[in-house]
């Protein structure tokens, strides 16, 4: 019995198979765990640990470094408003303050209905549409208070579900059709390469 749903578990195993070493799948798997649960739960991180050959402590320690991973529950929609330099010059702080009042929610907090989490973000690399706003890491191009309010209303009414899926960034991204190179074949080549490397390392160690 796994914590991941069967489709998520299958996806996770596919992701692990894409890398020469299991631990490399850590960030994608954490995104995936967050997609299932909305945030990183203990059970989700334990399963990531099992899949990547690490301990739950290593998983938590890694996840805590990255802004996109939430160790506490967040809203269905994470609204990020950029206030970095280009957005500052275009009124990013004012737009963030407007969002705070519109949502009646502190920056970093979640609305009482659990629908929205409001974040002040660093540069989102969309500086020509400033201030930049993302919802669940999708650019929404709402640069004025009115546009932002309209967006929040649309989100509440479920009118943006087609282009702003809840939680996570990987939910619609996947490799179709598997590896053309052939996972088993590639694994065999990698095993040979690893054995050759280990033999070299052992020889070097002996020599020294």
């Amino acid at each position: 019995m796994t914590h991941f749903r069967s489709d998520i578990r299958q996806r996770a195993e596919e992701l692990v198979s894409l890398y020469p070493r299991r631990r490399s799948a850590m960030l994608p798997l954490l995104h995936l765990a967050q997609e299932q649960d909305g945030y990183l739960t203990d059970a989700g991180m334990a399963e990531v640990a099992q899949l990547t050959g690490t301990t739950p402590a290593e998983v938590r320690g890694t996840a805590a470094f990255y802004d996109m991973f939430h160790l506490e529950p967040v809203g269905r929609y994470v609204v990020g408003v950029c206030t970095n330099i280009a957005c500052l010059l275009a009124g990013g702080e004012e737009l963030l303050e407007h969002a705070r009042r519109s949502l009646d929610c502190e920056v970093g907090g979640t609305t009482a209905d659990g629908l929205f989490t409001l974040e002040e973000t660093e540069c989102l690399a969309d500086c020509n549409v400033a201030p930049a706003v993302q919802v669940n890491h999708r650019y929404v191009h709402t640069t004025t208070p009115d546009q932002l309010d309209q967006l929040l209303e649309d989100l509440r009414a479920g009118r943006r579900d087609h282009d702003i899926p809840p939680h996570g960034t990987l939910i619609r991204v996947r490799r179709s059709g598997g590896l053309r190179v052939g996972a088993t074949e590639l694994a065999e080549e990698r095993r040979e390469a690893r054995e050759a490397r280990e033999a070299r390392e052992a020889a070097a160690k002996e020599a020294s």
Partner: protein
Amino acid sequence: MAVLDANPIVTSRREMADSHTLARYLETGGYAGLRQALTMHPEAVAAEVDAASLLGRGGAGFPAGRKWSMLRKSPISYLVVNGDESEPATFKDHYLVERDPHQLVEGVIIAAYALQVTQAFIFLRGEFALGLERVQQAINEAYEHGALGRHILGSSFSVDLVVHPGAGAYICGEETALLEALEGKRGFPRIKPPFFPAVTGLYGEPTVVNNVETMSNLPWIVLHGGAAFAALGGGRSTGTRMFALSGRVNRPGVYEIEMVKNTFRDLIFDPELGGGIPGGHELRAFIPGGVSAPWFFPEHLDMVLGQDEVGAAGSMLGSGSIVVMDDTTCVVRAAWRITKFFSRESCGQCTPCREGSGWVERILYRLEHGGGRTEDVDLLLDLCDNISPGLNWPPQQTTICVLGPSIPSSITSAISRFRDDFYAHVHHGSCPHA
């Protein structure tokens, strides 16, 4: 007047709504560069890139050809593409991954062939949700098309390409931190030496790390030859370059223009480019290459957009991001916000960066918000001198990576030119612009 007659190299499909699809890409010459490359010896492909004198487009401006040739002395393991674009005001790779993902994928395959690497990764910042989808879709289509996988396009060369999502950390743009993240760890930059992943990279094996824009130039270079690329631009700054223009301009955006042929004035004021400052306001200062770069001022407007020219004047072209500040801009607030960014994004390994960024951010905060003291201005310079002694450019290195020594850039720039603005904040008891 700006010189705009060179045809774009990496943004040639910018007018096409379906530029991200394989059908459109093939219709507009896509994968012809790869087909050409596969008829050549891998070292001949590398030689064309060397002949192009293509400088890396990520920020450091290291010649891509040299990165490759250093690597060729030892067996090659991995090619990693840096698409963690997070330097504030930089948004060119955002354009490339969303609008022309096949061009990137083709460039990566060409580089993999030249280096004879069978495993490549594209590391994209996690916030690029659509970009991740578009690049993955392009990779899927490339497999279908036979351009990726076993024996690509009927050749004897095989290569696999994996998209790796970041998770929100500026420091992962530093190539050794990026490799740590790709190994599934915290994004801590690695101790140097070795200075280059070409010596010790992913899993301790020789690795080449190149930027998204650098890779996107390769299909054109292979098709037209390195000499044709080197004929554009001038000096060491060859080819065209994507400049991301933002801040107080009428037409912010990404503009691909020939290197060296145009000036900052052209970029900011030409009606076909930045279109000048809104409301006819006066330019006060501009950042020439991302927020890590020291600021420029009106007297620098007629400098050409070239890596060595900007470097000689005490700043850097960096990631090609230009931020315009005008006479409505509070420079204290601008310096504070940039410093707050560094403070938030410091990975915490090195004391001068971890502690220093927090101290200068808090002093700038109190100056901007009414709690400042006259002596704070010199205190800021003293602290900056502790982070990077001498306050020179390029900055003296006291830390594992260059994030820390970049912190003083905006602060010393603002104080050197607008010291009275800081005192005005102290005397006014708050920001006079607010």
